């Protein structure tokens, strides 16, 4: 019985993994497939994508036609359970109410965490992204290079299934042969955007997303991922066969009952559980890493949310993978006489260099896309194509006024109509109503395109989190207080996004919806709102200026690791999830090797 309660856990494990999302799922998968006995602790409830995903449900069956509410911010059918910008009973504090100092913290309290609803965009960091300081003198270099991580990008792509293409572009790495699944066919709007963007010198190439555009190679891939480990190969082959390819309908953000996209709960956890090496306790809110007399971690303390009682679990190794800020919070709250400022914080860097992605959005209406015949454009649910950053040379030459790049996620098409489909179109209709309004809605339906910029933030001294001195959550656990500040690099980048998007819309003969925000402070989305928060326990080459080494191992406690986004020393424009998995897998291999050598 792999799901255990606080009282039916084993007395000790090889490894405790705190968290069950991209980092926790990947850590547990890699460890269990190689025979380690793992206890996973998840703060939220058990969750089954097979039985709980609202596949094919239509908005008319939902409250408020499925519109988002504070209870379900991304819409009623979004997969998120007990999550959002505010989680009942689990507050956090903002140090400033200044709009530019605002930080939003998204959480999900469920097995698989945020992987159940994420966008599935799976981009590799490039060589520049691991050495940004060496390139332009800003930010921090990682203690690893692209070549160190590349084999694990290959492995992660092969395991989870990522579609995309190799284009040989600058700082946009190709995958090894056979790693990527074929990209889906683009939509009319994708092709039109690509055609007009290219005329402006802006590239558009197939997107990379963790969606199975065809069945996985269950005969070849298991041996490639687990050479010499026949047990793991067999388990993985069986599990890969059970994942169906995409059926080209129903939004990925709801989760996927047929396991055609990556969620920790559809990819990492099933084979790990089948190995017999994984125990999972849900509703286990970890608040402290405990130390033995030898100064090594001996386990974690957690609140059993079903009883409200504190419990303890023991292991040889502890991995924190609770999400960047939550892992930092656990470490900061793990105070002792030996470590009065929190565990793994001898550098004083814990909580520092918190980063999110720069986000800015613009949409437009395109007459060329009006009155197209009926088309099924559900496709892969978005980002069939995207624009990687293309102005590396101009930027390095100092011509742009901001240091780092962004990519563009764009799209359009005849999406399933919902409560917003015909809302706010008076700027096009002139205020029609009656039969004319119905004609107008038919005319404009499917003629809108959107552009989401996703850009790199340079880490700074003013964006960090710490423990609030007074506020506690419903279990009495001290909560985080966030400090946030953008620099001119991010604000100018956001303004550049707006001008670029407007140029592309106009090159399509379209009209911009709303205003083009050329003031960066107005163009930029609030900190945290893109939900790519990373940093806070950064990895580095020097114990004085970083929290972990190149293996995600804390400098201060040899058997304590952090494998989530907290270790990121930069936050490239590429969405962080694939890199989290690559780092977590690499750390797990390192832990296994050290355990075999009896060093852990």
């Amino acid at each position, binding site marked *: 019985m792999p799901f255990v309660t606080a009282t039916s856990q084993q007395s000790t494990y090889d490894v405790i993994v705190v968290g069950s999302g991209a980092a926790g799922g990947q850590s547990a998968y890699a460890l269990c497939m190689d025979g380690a006995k793992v206890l996973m602790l998840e703060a939220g409830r058990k969750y089954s994508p097979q039985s709980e995903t609202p596949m094919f449900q239509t908005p008319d069956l939902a409250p408020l036609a499925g519109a988002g509410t504070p209870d379900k911010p991304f819409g009623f059918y979004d997969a998120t359970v007990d999550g959002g910008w505010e989680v009942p009973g689990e507050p956090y504090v903002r140090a400033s109410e200044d709009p530019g100092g605002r930080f939003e913290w998204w959480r999900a309290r469920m097995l698989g965490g945020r992987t159940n609803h994420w966008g599935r965009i799976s981009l590799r960091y490039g060589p520049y992204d691991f050495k940004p300081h060496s390139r332009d003198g800003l930010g921090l270099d990682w203690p690893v290079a692209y070549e160190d991580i590349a084999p694990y990008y290959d492995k992660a792509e092969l395991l989870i299934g990522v579609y995309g293409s190799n284009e040989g572009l600058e700082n946009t790495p190709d995958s090894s042969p056979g790693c990527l699944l074929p990209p889906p066919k683009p939509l009319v709007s994708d092709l039109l955007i690509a055609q007009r963007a290219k005329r402006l010198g802006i590239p558009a190439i197939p997107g990379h997303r963790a969606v199975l555009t065809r069945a996985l190679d269950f005969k070849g891939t298991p041996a490639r991922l687990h050479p010499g480990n026949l047990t793991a190969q067999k388990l993985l082959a069986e599990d890969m066969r059970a994942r169906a390819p995409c059926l080209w309908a129903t939004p990925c953000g709801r989760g996927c009952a047929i396991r055609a996209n990556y969620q920790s709960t559809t990819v990492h956890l099933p084979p790990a559980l089948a190995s017999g090496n994984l125990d999972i306790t849900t509703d286990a809110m970890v608040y402290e890493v405990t130390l033995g007399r030898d100064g090594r971690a001996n386990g974690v303390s957690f609140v059993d949310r079903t009883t409200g009682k504190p419990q303890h679990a023991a292991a040889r190794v502890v991995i924190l993978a609770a999400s960047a800020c939550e892992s930092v919070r656990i470490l900061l709250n793990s105070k002792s006489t030996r470590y009065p400022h929190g565990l793994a914080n001898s550098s004083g860097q814990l909580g520092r260099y918190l980063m999110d992605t720069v986000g800015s959005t613009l949409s437009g209406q395109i007459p060329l896309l009006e009155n197209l015949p009926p088309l099924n454009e559900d496709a892969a649910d978005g980002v069939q194509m995207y624009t990687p950053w293309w102005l590396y040379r101009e930027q390095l030459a100092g011509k742009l006024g901001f240091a780092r790049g962004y990519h563009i996620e764009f799209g359009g098409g005849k999406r399933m109509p919902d409560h917003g*489909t015909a809302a706010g179109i008076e700027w096009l209709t002139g205020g029609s109503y*009656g039969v004319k309004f119905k004609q107008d809605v038919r005319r404009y339906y499917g003629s809108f395109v959107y552009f989401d910029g996703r850009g790199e933030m340079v880490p700074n001294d003013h964006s960090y989190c710490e423990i609030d001195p007074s506020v506690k959550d419903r279990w009495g656990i001290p909560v985080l207080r966030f400090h946030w500040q953008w620099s001119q690099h991010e604000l100018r980048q956001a303004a550049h996004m707006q001008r670029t998007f407007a140029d592309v819309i106009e090159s399509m003969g379209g009209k911009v919806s709303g205003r083009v925000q050329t003031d960066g402070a107005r163009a930029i989305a609030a900190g945290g709102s893109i939900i790519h928060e990373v940093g806070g326990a950064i990895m580095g080459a020097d114990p004085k200026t970083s929290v972990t080494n190149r293996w995600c191992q804390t400098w201060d406690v040899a058997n304590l690791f952090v494998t989530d986004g907290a270790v990121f020393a930069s936050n490239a424009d590429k969405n962080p999830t694939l890199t989290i998995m690559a780092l977590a897998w690499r750390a797990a291999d390192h832990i296994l090797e050290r355990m075999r050598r009896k060093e852990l």
Partner: protein
Amino acid sequence: MDRRTSIKWVLAASASWPLLATRSRSAEPAAALPGYGTDPPLVTVYHPGQLWPLTLKPPQRRLAGILADIIIPADEHSASASAVGVVDFIDEWISAPYPRNQRDCPIILSGFSWLDAEARRRFGQGFADLDSRQHHSICDDICSEARAARDARDGARFFARYRDLTAGGFYSTPVGRQDLGYIGNVPLAHFDGPPPELLKKLNLP
């Protein structure tokens, strides 16, 4: 709508502003909303009135349906808004305990009052009892927020919101999806992309 209900809603809506401000200042735990919560069952069917009590009284429902059908009447393509349950949707929307809905509620209820008062001023009877020509003479004055005269701006603000809600309720139904020619949400063995002849017509590669 009686005046007391109206005032209650306005107060509730205005009270939600300082509440929001306080929450954002310290991100204090939000007061538990009597909504569907953060973990509602998703694989089930919901009906208006099931999760929270509805607001509209019979005369208001009558007016709501007449106005919804002025905005989305039956035509050769599809039924009218009221025929597919839009009044229930709007009633559910303005009755929901969430901030956005609580802001909309007084806009809609006072908009109904504005319409009735305007109908009485112009034609001596309530809006629901007017004929089509009379309906249009009022709606033409408030159908555009950009063009509305100064004294019709409240009416125009209401009308814009009501049109959005009506369209939201209508186009999220099977009838609305069909009206727009939406043919997705069905499993496909493969996705072939747009037909070549369409791409050719649009000069796309």
